[in-house]
């Protein structure tokens, strides 16, 4: 099989979402609303990019990815 005929990996158009556990009080946009979450809250459906940024700041930990 030539290089050109290899099936190309399909890029997912779906945005990955994370389930997170808040380690500190945190404000996050969910849809059109900004939510304030308390420490200890577990929350599904957080945009991956935002979750990673807040994880790097130590405000939450990512517990699952969908």
């Amino acid at each position, binding site marked *: 099989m030539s290089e050109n005929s290899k099936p190309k990996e399909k890029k997912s158009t779906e945005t990955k979402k994370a389930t997170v556990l808040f380690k500190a*009080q945190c404000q996050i946009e*969910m*849809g*059109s*609303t*900004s*939510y*304030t*979450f*308390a*420490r*200890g*809250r577990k*929350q599904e*459906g957080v945009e991956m990019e935002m979750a990673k940024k807040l994880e790097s700041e130590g405000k939450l930990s990512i517990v699952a990815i969908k």
Partner: protein
Amino acid sequence: MSRAFAIGSNLFFAREGDVIDGVTVGRDAKPDNDPATNYMQFGCVQDSEFLNNFGESIEIYCPSPGHLELDEIIELIPNFSIVASVQKWQEIDMELALQADRKLVQGEAFIPGARSSSIRGWLKGQFYSHSDEEIIAFDMWVQLSMESYTFSARGADPHAITFRRLQSDLNTAVVTNIAA
């Protein structure tokens, strides 16, 4: 510096269990008020009474040098409530007045006097002076109740709703514009 003012109370509420933008409102999840439809507004509040109750307390007396003088008071159960006199009615007011067994929806049947769970949620208060400056703003996780009310043919009085503050790490308040 100090100043006098009359206060207009605006009270907004987001109910526990309601789903806003995919998030369930709760003690540890508080929505903002953009869009404004995230919170319902209580209809035309006349007065808001702030009630401070310290419940039980322990008084510590110390000798000075021989007779006893009150030295310290330990307040064991501090709590805070707001009682608002509301002039207009909505579903939630009727639900409280009739102790409905479920979230009241106009036209749908419910059982009166059979409420088995409390109504809790986020109370967003915005108190403005007579010259429209914000004086107090707060977000408070609360439980609602309504005092007895008489439906009268001689004219409607405001009904009193009590918002009793409950613990949440997200409770917050700010006071501004009190210095002249």
